[in-house]
């Protein structure tokens, strides 16, 4: 190993990805009582369905998104509420709350950042025919996890 390599700092993306993954896994474990594991790199990403969005402002400025197919979102809602979750409104609400908890759990794991960063209330987009243009165009990390064998994508975009 060269001296240069030994001194190289990991990029923010490298630092954030495992924290985002752990934050997401904890939310699924605690709220749904199930473990989610990273999908294979070649695994397909969820298309269409629902995308929950939570904004970050302050020391961290950007967005966290949580995207999955409609059926998966329904299973997440049922995991949170039991069989009483049946309306699309509840499914959307549940996905927004999951994204909110992932974003909050993520920032709470960043020492010194949680004090100076606030979250927006969640928003949820339904359907896949859209493009998200975040003003926080900069660092971006994405992970795809498997929830009951279905892909769930979590993305963090932060302003440089």
């Amino acid at each position, binding site marked *: 190993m060269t001296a240069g390599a030994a001194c190289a700092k990991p990029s923010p993306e490298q630092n954030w990805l495992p924290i985002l993954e752990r934050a997401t896994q904890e939310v699924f474990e605690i709220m749904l009582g199930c473990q989610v594991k990273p999908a294979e790199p070649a695994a397909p990403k969820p298309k269409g369905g629902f995308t929950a969005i939570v904004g970050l402002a302050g020391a961290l400025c950007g967005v966290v998104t949580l995207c999955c197919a409609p059926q998966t979102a329904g299973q997440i809602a049922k995991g949170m*509420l039991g069989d009483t979750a049946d309306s699309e409104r509840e499914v959307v609400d549940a996905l927004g709350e999951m994204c909110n908890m992932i974003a909050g759990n993520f920032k709470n794991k960043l020492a010194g950042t949680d004090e100076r960063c606030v979250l927006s209330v969640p928003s949820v987009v339904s359907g896949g025919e859209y493009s998200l243009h975040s003003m926080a165009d900069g660092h971006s990390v994405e992970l795809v996890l498997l929830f009951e064998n279905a892909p769930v994508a979590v993305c963090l975009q932060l302003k440089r």
Partner: protein
Amino acid sequence: MDKIRALIVDDSSVMRKIVERSLRQAGIDLDKVVEASNGAEALVALQNNVVDLILCDINMPVMDGLEFVRQVHTVDSAKDVPIVMITTEGSESHVVQALTAGARGYIRKPFTPDQVKEHVLPLLGKKS
């Protein structure tokens, strides 16, 4: 255990249901559950309902949970009602702000029913 009247304040109806379920799982015998989706609605609800316990989110539209806690003393019947914050905001400054404003407990989301039991039962004079 005496029957408890609870006010649950959260802009997410899903989260309000989960909090109510957690209270029942904690062994709390709920007589009545009043719901509000923000602090302003909660203040109105307190004008019309006497409750024994309040569980409140922080990040909500219209009036957030911290402002609600600051204003709750304006409702005579709610002055001494214990308030527990349940929120994704986990920073020490939020905890301090909430406790300084008058909250008696603080639970970070995601949370387990056991955490609700641990924080809420002592406020009702019960062992957790």
